């Protein structure tokens, strides 16, 4: 090892707190970057692995129930590997003392389906001839306590199906489940799924009734061509819904959630990288300021600037790689925390943790590159000077504070101050650059930590305010579209004050080459039950041209502006509609149209697919009405939205913790360095007879000035950073309204500010314990 390299390593050990600050900031950056990306990767891979292993359907066609013998032969279509027919019915499960649970009962031709296969997590599969047995989805076990050996009763219309539970399974079909398609949100446990043999019902009817066909494509099949051929052959059926794999709720939900998070992650990484650059640059700058005479001497001896620059870069590389190793350990913790929280909030039944070296390499390379750039900048500025200029103690002569008579009110004020205060003010003013850098570093550390806290609060408040303008209490989804006059049955329920119909169905939006899936929701124009909160443009009007209001995410995905015309594709029809406004929404993907337009697009004139109910108490039992399927309470929806978005809050909380930790590092290193650099001045004062108490007062006063200055400066930094984070969150997720409560500032800034004087105590003790004479006589290049 060369002596220069040895010197750098020993210097790093001598200044180990500064070195540790660099190690930890790089570790934090690597951990957040790799941890969150690995978390996302784990979630995507869990979904994809399960979908692959359990043969998630490539296409599903739902139609009105029909005799299986009337179904066309799909087997001969090129590209199809397998076809399975099913009967899927919505009903309710009732337990004494509990509200009825919306339940989907699926009757299978084969008890071990090859499409949407089962993973058994308890008990066993139903036997081929066990018509009285069923398996249940793990959600029923997890959220409602159903288990093997229990007996379930599912009421579908007037019929009641009784089955013995023989197994608990995970199915990719209901990986996450929504209770109401109008709200693109899964509600854990809000829907139960029961699977039983189709033969049981066929024996009763005398024929095989089916309403659903699922398809598995061959590898490399042209999905669009196969879908076209399937729909062509199914034209005689009364097709209700067609789902390709990427339009399936579970697939779409996970995709949109995780892509939202992925889009937001760069904002966190950018802020952390900026912090890395500043912390490393500050520490390296302080190191080389202290090392100037050594660097100058080496240059005088013939060391070339490039060699010295390389030595510092090597040191940073070593510290950065050490930080990467520490960060690698931390990234597993962040990955697990984040992925588990995300899986829990989305209702994913299991999570397979995974890692990849490419992400880790990107995290390490980017963080280390930032640290190297932050090192190169101050070192290059120094070594490009002549050795003589470097050896001089300071690049510029210290700026003396004018205290001569007649130099102004400030000088007079300073002269009036007690000796300790005078020295503190002079220390700060004569080294203004250093003081400014220290102040800025502390303010930045505090400001960024506060910003994350503010953004968490803003997100929470935004969600808290969502649906605040809605006056409905229950959203009731019907088992099938019903004529409008049957809403009277709902209005007749006890405590129901008003009922307002809506119509929802899945559509495809097309604008030029761009295509997006959407849930159309038709609302009564000028509805007071579910008013539109406009972000841009105006609400739709009934009559005349078809008008639509989109959530902002959809308009962004389709590249639309208010006034544009788009095409809504539903089944085989297409409808031109004009975009008249954009809506803020906590959940995206919605196309809001007048109720009659939705009826037309969804091809059910004079019918409703659901209704909003205003109630005056909890007496209403909508499940008692024969056509009612799923019932969603507004208070549950708000709670669920908060839970779904809690993933983002977990990320922000993690970022806050990292930022607070880094902020503490910045504060402690900055303030202790600031004291250490004045150690000779303090020794001189002690030699002149200043007491330890007076020296302590000087140091604490300087710290107090830094604390107050940083407090003031950190506020605009926090506000600006929070605005940026909220903006990025709004782009990626939901519209977040910025919010700056005093409590968020107090929660971060007060402990941070208290840390400033506390941070200088250890180094002050070091200064006061050291013999003044030793300090003054020290001749080594410290």
């Amino acid at each position, binding site marked *: 090892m060369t002596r220069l390299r*040895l010197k750098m390593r020993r210097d790093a050990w001598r200044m180990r707190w500064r070195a540790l600050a660099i190690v930890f900031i790089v570790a934090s950056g690597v951990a957040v970057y790799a941890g969150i990306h690995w978390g996302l990767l784990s979630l995507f891979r869990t979904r994809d692995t399960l979908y692959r292993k359990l043969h998630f359907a490539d296409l599903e066609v739902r139609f009105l129930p029909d005799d299986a013998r009337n179904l066309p032969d799909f087997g001969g279509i090129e590209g199809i590997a397998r076809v399975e027919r099913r009967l899927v019915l919505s009903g309710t499960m009732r337990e004494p003392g509990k509200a009825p649970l919306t339940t989907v009962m699926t009757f299978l031709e084969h008890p071990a389906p090859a499409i949407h296969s089962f993973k058994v997590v308890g008990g066993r599969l139903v036997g081929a001839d066990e018509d009285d047995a069923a398996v249940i989805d793990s959600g029923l076990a997890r959220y409602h306590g159903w288990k093997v050996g229990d007996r379930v009763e599912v009421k579908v219309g007037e019929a009641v199906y009784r089955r013995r539970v023989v197994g608990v399974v995970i199915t990719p079909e209901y990986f996450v489940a929504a209770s109401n398609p109008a709200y693109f949100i899964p509600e854990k446990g809000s829907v139960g799924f029961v699977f039983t043999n189709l033969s049981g019902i066929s024996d009763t009817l005398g024929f095989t009734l089916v309403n659903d066909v699922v398809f598995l494509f061959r590898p490399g099949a042209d999905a669009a061509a196969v879908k076209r051929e399937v729909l062509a052959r199914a034209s005689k059926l009364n097709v209700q819904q067609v789902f390709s794999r990427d339009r399936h709720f579970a697939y779409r939900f996970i995709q949109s959630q995780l892509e939202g998070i992925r889009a937001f992650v760069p904002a966190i990484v950018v802020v952390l990288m900026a912090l890395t650059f500043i912390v490393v640059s500050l520490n390296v700058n302080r190191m080389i300021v202290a090392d100037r005479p050594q660097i100058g001497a*080496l240059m005088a001896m013939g060391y070339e600037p490039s060699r010295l620059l390389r030595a510092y870069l090597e040191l940073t590389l070593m510290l950065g790689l050490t930080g990467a190793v520490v960060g690698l350990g931390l990234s597993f913790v962040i990955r697990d925390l984040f992925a588990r929280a995300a899986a829990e909030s989305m209702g994913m039944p299991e999570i397979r943790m995974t890692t990849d070296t490419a992400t880790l390499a990107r995290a390490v390379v980017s963080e280390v590159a930032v640290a190297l750039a932050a090192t190169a900048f101050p070192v290059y500025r120094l070594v490009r000077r002549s050795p003589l200029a470097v050896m001089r103690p300071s690049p510029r002569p210290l700026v003396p504070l004018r205290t001569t008579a007649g130099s102004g009110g400030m000088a007079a004020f300073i002269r009036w101050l007690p000796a300790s205060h005078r020295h503190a003010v002079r220390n700060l003013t004569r080294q203004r650059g250093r003081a400014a850098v220290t102040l800025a570093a502390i303010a930045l550390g505090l400001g960024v930590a506060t910003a994350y806290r503010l953004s968490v609060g803003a997100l929470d408040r935004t969600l808290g305010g969502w649906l605040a303008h809605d006056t409905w209490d229950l959203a009731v989804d019907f088992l099938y579209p019903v004529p409008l006059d049957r809403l009277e049955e709902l209005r007749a329920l006890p405590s129901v004050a008003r009922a307002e119909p809506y119509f929802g169905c899945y559509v495809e939006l097309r604008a030029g080459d761009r295509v997006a899936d959407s849930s159309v929701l038709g609302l009564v124009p000028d509805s007071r039950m579910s008013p539109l909160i406009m972000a841009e443009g105006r609400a739709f009007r009934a009559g005349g041209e078809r008008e639509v209001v989109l959530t902002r995410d959809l308009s962004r995905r389709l590249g639309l502006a208010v006034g544009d015309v788009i095409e809504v594709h539903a089944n085989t029809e297409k409808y031109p509609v004009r975009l008249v406004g954009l809506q803020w929404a906590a959940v995206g993907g919605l196309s809001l149209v007048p109720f009659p337009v939705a009826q037309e697009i969804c091809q059910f004139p004079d019918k409703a697919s659901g209704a909003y109910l205003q109630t005056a108490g909890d007496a209403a039992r909508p499940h008692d009405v024969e056509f009612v399927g799923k019932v969603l309470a507004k208070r549950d929806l708000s709670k669920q939205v908060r839970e779904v978005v809690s993933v983002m809050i977990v990320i922000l909380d993690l970022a806050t913790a990292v930022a607070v930790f880094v902020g503490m590092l910045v504060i402690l290193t900055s303030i202790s360095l600031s004291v250490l650099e004045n150690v000779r001045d303090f020794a001189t004062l002690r030699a002149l007879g200043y007491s330890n108490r007076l020296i302590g007062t000087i140091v604490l006063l300087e710290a107090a000035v830094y604390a107050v200055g940083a407090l003031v400066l950190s506020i605009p930094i926090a506000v600006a950073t929070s605005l940026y984070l909220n903006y990025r969150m709004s782009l990626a997720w939901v519209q977040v309204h910025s919010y700056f409560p005093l409590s968020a500032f107090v929660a971060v800034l007060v402990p941070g500010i208290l840390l400033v004087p506390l941070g200088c105590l250890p180094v002050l003790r070091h200064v006061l314990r050291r013999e003044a004479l030793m300090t003054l006589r020290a001749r080594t*290049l410290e």
Partner: protein
Amino acid sequence: MYAADDALVELQHVSKTYPVGEGVVNALRDVDLVLPRNEIVIVHGVSGSGKSTLLNLIGALDVPSSGTLIVDGATISAMSEGERAKFRAAKIGFVFQFYNLLPTLTAAENVEAGLEVLPLTRAEIRDRTQRYLSAMGMADKAGKFPSQLSGGEQQRVGIARALAKEPALILADEPTGNLDEENGLHVMQLMSELRASAQATIVVVTHNMGLATFADRVLHLHHGRFLRSSAAAPDA
């Protein structure tokens, strides 16, 4: 006078000015000087006389504002900073007033650090380090850090570091300025003895005329000009 081809250092009409505020300071004014090889030269002068400036120019740490400066056949004034760094590495040894030892390296490692800018093998570096530390009477303290050495010992390490490079020119800026009289004389004695074996020219800048006894020649600088030159030190 010396013939130019015997000269190690040659200054022709060299001036050096520094901007200070809105004016300039003339640190050296139209100086002509020739220094031969293998000689100890003392440059004497009061503070601000320009002696450190002269040393910095000869040591290729700085370039003249005007005039020509040639050291060992190389024109310093025409060199870039990078070329001057290479030149310093190969040709010049520095002895600093404040020793400028690297605090986190031992005495031996400090000497080795000075040699690592030369194209030497590890064995050669180790050999030279031991040789010159022994010559300076510091072999038994080779493993000590600067903070564990006295001022005189630190300066002896500094001199060993300069001599070990076996340069053509050794420049010492107030080498005894921080030492007591006894240690100062001892250091100068060592430099004088080693000069002969090292075949180097040693230029010592000092305001202490007591060191003139070790010199082959004494130059007196005043306000950036040489007042007189003497072969020995009559007033020492």
